[in-house]
């Protein structure tokens, strides 16, 4: 049997035979290698989660800020409305009181001059009349006391208050005419009324006592007769007077209530009261109850001249998704000659790879703005803004936009034939990141309602001249590929000066009576030209950068301002 000769071959065949065939029986690496890989994978996963968490935190913070602003604005508007209402009520009351005091003063002087009148008034159930628009002393005091103690006082408690008032009036030293007059001049209706009450004569006190006695003795008879009992009548009048204190209508109603008191007291007193009331009305020439005082003349206040402020100032922050939309595919230009004859094809392939993997990044902008009112709803704004925008892509050739420096890991021809058969070349991509910083001057036309408080809408459109301050690019895991171009870099593939068009609209909230306002709304901008310089495309066919986002800002100096009157 002839033995088969041992296999022989060239140097290449020898190595290929041993090295390739022995791969299956190769010794596996140490377990430590997997631990390192596992640890690195875990770290990468944590980094990914950390990035997500960061995005979520920013989103939550922005939502919280918006919610806080909205809630604070709503709360502030409520506070302003309440304060305005309180001020209006106080001022109205004060105005009526002053009007009442002005109307009462002559009558009170008159009452002080004639003791008989005052005594007569005190006799009529200790109700000292002041003329039109004033409350009866006894009722007013009772009402005030009842109102101070229990708002919904019962007839009995009101009666106690009423009696207490009378008792107090009786216990006080008699007031003189001069004291009454002094009280009248003091302008305080309450004091005046009280002093008038404390000025009865002994006869008046007796009559008061009789009236009280009759009041207490005949509640049933009054009830049967269909008229309200005196305590109830007084209580109603007192409660009504308390609730309507200071209004002319309430004073008129009090007149009726006092008259009812007199009528309900007793037939004798009722007749006397009617006579006295009629005489008193004739003396004082009272106007009809409920009518306006004849000596008060309504004067319309002249409107305060105002105008819109010419200048407004503000700051604005915008966050957006920025897409540089660059096509680095050059039709002409410089290529890295070190790459040899494949320089153009390799660079174009790298540019296509960059564009295929291009992803938008975060864009941030801070704008300081001055706005000039043009007239009507239109304003023109300008200012200064700085922006930082980022974008991401992936490359297998450390390509960042400039010349292709290294094509060693870039394989533009796949599949490749190798010893292991047809080896499909995988694109081992490395993430590349781009950061653009720029400063610009915006000029925008704005439409809004500057005079409106609360919530209003605004719109803005304009152009920005932007200077690229720096462009920084990195390739993950390849620090040699890091490039930083400044505004003065001669080899920068980016335009140093670009023009952008921007439009934004949104909602503005300005609290009433304030000169500041908050605005928030979406914004979008697009470049007039491409971001890179070397492009063989025509102006209309260029790939322009764009961004869409949201902006929020604060503005000072809005709303109306008073104008000094000119004679």
């Amino acid at each position: 049997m002839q033995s088969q000769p041992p296999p022989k071959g060239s140097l290449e065949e020898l190595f290929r035979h041993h090295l390739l065939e022995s791969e299956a029986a190769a010794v596996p690496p140490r377990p430590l290698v997997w631990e390192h890989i596992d640890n690195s994978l875990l770290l990468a996963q944590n980094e990914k989660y950390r990035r997500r968490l960061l995005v979520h935190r920013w989103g939550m913070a922005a939502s919280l800020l918006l919610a806080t602003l909205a809630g604070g604005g709503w709360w502030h508007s409520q506070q302003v409305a309440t304060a305005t209402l309180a001020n209006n009520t106080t001022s109205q009351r004060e105005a009526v009181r002053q009007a009442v005091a002005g109307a009462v003063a002559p009558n009170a002087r008159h009452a002080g001059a004639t003791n008989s009148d005052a005594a007569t008034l005190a006799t009529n159930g200790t109700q000292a009349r002041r003329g039109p628009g004033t409350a009866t002393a006894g009722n007013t005091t009772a009402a005030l006391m009842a109102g101070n103690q229990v708002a919904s006082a019962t007839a009995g408690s009101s009666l106690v208050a009423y009696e207490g008032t009378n008792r107090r009036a009786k216990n006080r030293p008699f007031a003189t005419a001069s004291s009454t007059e002094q009280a009248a001049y003091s302008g305080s209706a309450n004091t005046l009324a009280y002093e008038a009450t404390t000025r009865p004569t002994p006869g008046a006190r007796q009559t008061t006592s009789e009236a009280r006695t009759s009041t207490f003795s005949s509640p049933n008879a009054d009830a049967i007769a269909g008229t309200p009992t005196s305590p109830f009548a007084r209580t109603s009048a007192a409660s009504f007077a308390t609730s309507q204190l200071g209004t002319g209508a309430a004073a008129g109603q009090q007149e009726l209530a006092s008259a009812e008191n007199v009528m309900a007291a007793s037939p004798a007193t009722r007749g006397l009261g009617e006579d006295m009331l009629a005489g008193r009305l004739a003396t004082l020439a009272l106007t009809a109850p409920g009518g306006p005082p004849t000596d008060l003349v309504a004067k319309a206040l002249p409107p305060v001249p105002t105008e819109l402020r010419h200048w407004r100032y503000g700051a604005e922050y915008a966050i957006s998704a920025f897409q540089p939309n660059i096509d680095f595919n050059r039709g002409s230009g410089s290529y890295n000659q070190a790459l040899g004859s494949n320089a153009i094809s390799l660079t174009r392939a790298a540019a296509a790879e960059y564009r295929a993997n291009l992803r938008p990044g975060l864009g941030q902008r801070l704008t300081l703005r001055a706005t000039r009112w043009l007239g009507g709803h239109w304003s023109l704004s300008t200012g200064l803004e700085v922006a930082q925008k980022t974008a991401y892509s992936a490359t297998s050739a450390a390509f960042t936009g400039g010349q292709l420096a290294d094509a060693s890991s870039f394989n533009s021809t796949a599949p490749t034939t190798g010893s292991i058969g047809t080896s499909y070349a995988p694109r081992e991509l490395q993430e590349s990141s781009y950061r653009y910083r720029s400063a610009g001057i915006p000029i925008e036309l704005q439409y809004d309602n500057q005079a409106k408080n609360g919530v209003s809408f605004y719109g803005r459109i304009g152009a920005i001249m932007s200077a690229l301050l720096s462009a920084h690019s990195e390739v993950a895991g390849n620090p040699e590929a890091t490039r930083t171009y400044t505004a003065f870099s001669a080899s920068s593939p980016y335009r140093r000066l670009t023009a952008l068009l921007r439009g934004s609209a949104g909602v503005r909230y300005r609290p009433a009576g304030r000169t500041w306002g908050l605005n928030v709304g979406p914004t979008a901008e697009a470049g007039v030209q491409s971001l890179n310089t070397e492009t063989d495309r025509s102006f209309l066919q260029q790939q322009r950068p764009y961004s869409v986002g949201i902006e929020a800002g604060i503005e000072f100096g809005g709303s109306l301002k008073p104008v000094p009157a000119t004679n």
Partner: protein
Amino acid sequence: MSALAWPASFGQDLPARPSGLTASRPAPRAVPTEDELIDGCLQGQQLAQKQLYEKYSARMMAVCLRYAQTTFEAEDVLQEGFLTVFRTLGSFRRECPLEFWIRRVMINAALRQHRRNAPLIAVSDGDYPENLASEEFTFSNYAYGELLAVVQELAPRYRLVFNLYAIEGYTHKEIGELLNISEGTSKSQYARARVVLQTKLARLAGQTRPLS
């Protein structure tokens, strides 16, 4: 779901458990297919990642050993290569066997390692003749370890060119593109590597056995 959670009547309809099976013995786990491994890795499953690593790590270690000078360096390349595999597995189009794709990733990792270390390594051609005539070698006269050691002793650039051309089957043009050198440079470096290897193999044969 626990069996206790089921109503008692449900168990009556169930077929009887085969007597040969016990609850404590786990069912034999099927070996995951390549697609299942890929899908598991894409979902971030640690088990799938480890299974994929265990399946290909030995073969890829052999590849890395050829491109590296030491075992430690090869492990570094292997680690970086597998990290790249797990990171970029989503770009694998499944048009070829996964092993080919991983092998290519490992070669790229070795090239990156070479670029990082190239400036630090002083290259010396040594004292070798300019050219040698081609000769035939008997395969059985050499062992895997001997040949691997001879390759690892080559200068880094020679080792790369020799591996890419002789073992992987790249053309000199492709090697020039990969290493950022010209085609002629690749050819000359390969010729130089071949002379070095021939000389070393001759010395190796002279020490141990007669050169055939």
